[in-house]
């Protein structure tokens, strides 16, 4: 009978932990950004000798599956835009042609960030939390991609218990090989209840000595019509920007 109780407890405990972990993941998502928003980001690729290349982007997101970004600088990239609807991604280059499909593992900016980092959806929409570890001041969430189309098969996410905000995320392949690590820094109040890290740094064993940094500004709740997130609207994203 004791053995039966043990297995019953184990059977019931496992899903309970998973549910808690997924709820925690959803809370992390909401603390990182509202479900629908606009924001500005600066991406900085830093070479081992300290030389850097910067990009400034205006990004908009709606719900769980639509996100778009417009390059504001440098001049050589100004006007480019990227769009993601679920797992579909496109790149539009002004003057050149119609938007072309791109894949999540490519990078339109070079450096350590790839397209899925730039056009990121909520973690909870792409990953299942399969394990939760209590590590004192932090939780460690083990996440598994829901589908094969997600850029990283596994994530290990360290979450600050007090702020319910990630401090570090390791991105791994299916074979548990580390692709890159994201470090979340400089918690900042963006207003309207949005308190999140203002800086995300990343490095990768695949790019030894290189580092990429993403900085956030003017993160605001904003709703958009669905038509904004279409190929036809990609050349017109600039019209969404408002005076700062």
């Amino acid at each position: 009978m004791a053995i039966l109780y043990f297995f019953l407890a184990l059977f019931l405990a496992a899903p309970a932990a998973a549910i808690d972990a997924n709820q925690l993941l959803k809370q992390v998502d909401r603390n990182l950004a509202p479900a629908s928003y606009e924001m500005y980001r600066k991406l900085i690729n830093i070479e081992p000798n300290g030389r850097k290349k910067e990009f400034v982007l205006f990004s908009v997101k709606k719900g769980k599956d639509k996100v778009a970004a417009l390059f504001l600088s440098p001049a050589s990239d100004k006007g480019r835009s990227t769009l993601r609807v679920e797992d579909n991604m496109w790149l539009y280059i002004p003057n050149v042609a119609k938007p072309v499909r791109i894949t999540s593992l490519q990078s339109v900016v070079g450096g350590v960030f790839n397209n899925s980092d730039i056009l990121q959806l909520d973690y909870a929409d792409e990953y299942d939390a399969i394990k939760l570890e209590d590590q004192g001041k932090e939780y460690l969430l083990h996440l598994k991609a829901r589908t094969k189309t997600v850029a990283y098969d596994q994530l290990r996410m360290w979450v600050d218990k007090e702020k319910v905000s990630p401090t570090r995320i390791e991105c791994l392949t299916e074979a548990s090989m580390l692709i890159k690590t994201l470090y979340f820094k400089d918690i900042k109040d963006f207003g309207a209840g949005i308190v999140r890290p203002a800086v995300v740094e990343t490095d990768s064993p695949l790019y030894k000595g290189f580092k990429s940094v993403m900085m956030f500004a003017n993160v605001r709740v904003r709703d958009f019509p669905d038509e904004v997130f279409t190929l036809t609207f990609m050349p017109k994203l600039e019209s969404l920007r408002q005076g700062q």
Partner: protein
Amino acid sequence: MITQIFSLRRLLLSFLIFFYAGVLSAEDFAFDLSEIEKKPYSFGGFIEFRPVLFGLDREAAFYRLRYFDQDQKNIRDEYNLGLRLEGSYEKGAAGVYFRTDSTLGYDDQDWNDDTVLGEGYLSLKPATGFSVNAGKRVVPWGKGYAFNPAAFVSRPKDIDDPTEALEGFYLIDADIIKSYDGPLKTLAFTPVILPVTDDLNDDFGEADHLNFAAKLYLLFRDTDLDFMFFTGASRTTRYGFDFSRNIGTNFEVHGEAAWITDFEKQNIDSQGRLTTETADILQALFGIRYLTANDITYIVEYYHNGGGIEVDDAENFYEFVDRAYDRFLAAGDSSQLARAAQLSRGTLAASRPMRDYFYFRASIKEPFDILYVTPAITSIVNLNDQSLSLTPELAYTPITNLDIRLRGAFLTGARQTEFGEKQNDYRLELRVRYYF
């Protein structure tokens, strides 16, 4: 002497400042809000220097057609300066946009210059899902990277540089977009009106006609689908279709087809006579884009041009040029060469004039951890006569907004083949472009 040393030091200092302007401590990050300030206007462009060296093939048909009455030479060089200006101004739902390209070139001991309005139009966006544009505009249709048979209202791409901006046509177009939940996520309709007169769009087709085109776009079950249509008296009626879909995180497939009614297929006989026959033809392509684990991107396309010149007709043309050249050498009579040059226009001098082509491009991003360096190799194969071009290139962005590209194009093929009869055996090109 002291002044000279001082000047040298100042020069060295300027040099160091120029090359290390972007070097800062890795921790020295700043996000100045002035960088994201919204302005009603924008202005930018680039300046470009592009010297080109051509290795000429003195036995080739197109060399003879161009240089038959000039001093014979093995190489030719040209130097090109380019300036692109583009800008926009927005007020409320209205905006104006322009793009101009100016070139100054030195070629065969002659200077030439040109300025082209690439685009210049007025745009009205009364609602997110509705906009209207009027003016000179590029309306790019189709999913092909190197070929776009279904781009019914735009000029053909330069296959040697398919990502370069095109010159538009004067037209009125609109976009009507609707989004949905469910398998059909997006529906967009783009009607186009394109007039042709003696002064407007005169290179599009027959003058004094109003032409109509339209495209219906669907994002259906994660697949891009387009259906196109063109009708009007300037060109014959044609129907188009394309698709594109990601079938993995690193694999995209696309295809495009155009059915052109009453197309005038051209035939050339052994006497250099051009005849045409009218038929409905199919132009189609299928392609993939694939990214490997070590960051090599492959773009591969097969293109079938149902209206292209047949191998026998191409051989007839090249034989006609040979005889015309022999006649010029023997009797100084260039009339047949002039006729051959006339014949080549619209046939074998056109871009990809024959039936079946294979396009291949492989580029590797930042190999050996060298940031901002992208080597690539491109090949275009004429599958009908087995001639081909091979183009290795190296692109480098040493500092922000400065793009440097070095490329060579090597043409190979037997006599009486497309690439074997081009005027060049090879071409070396440096392009230095600074954006502002």
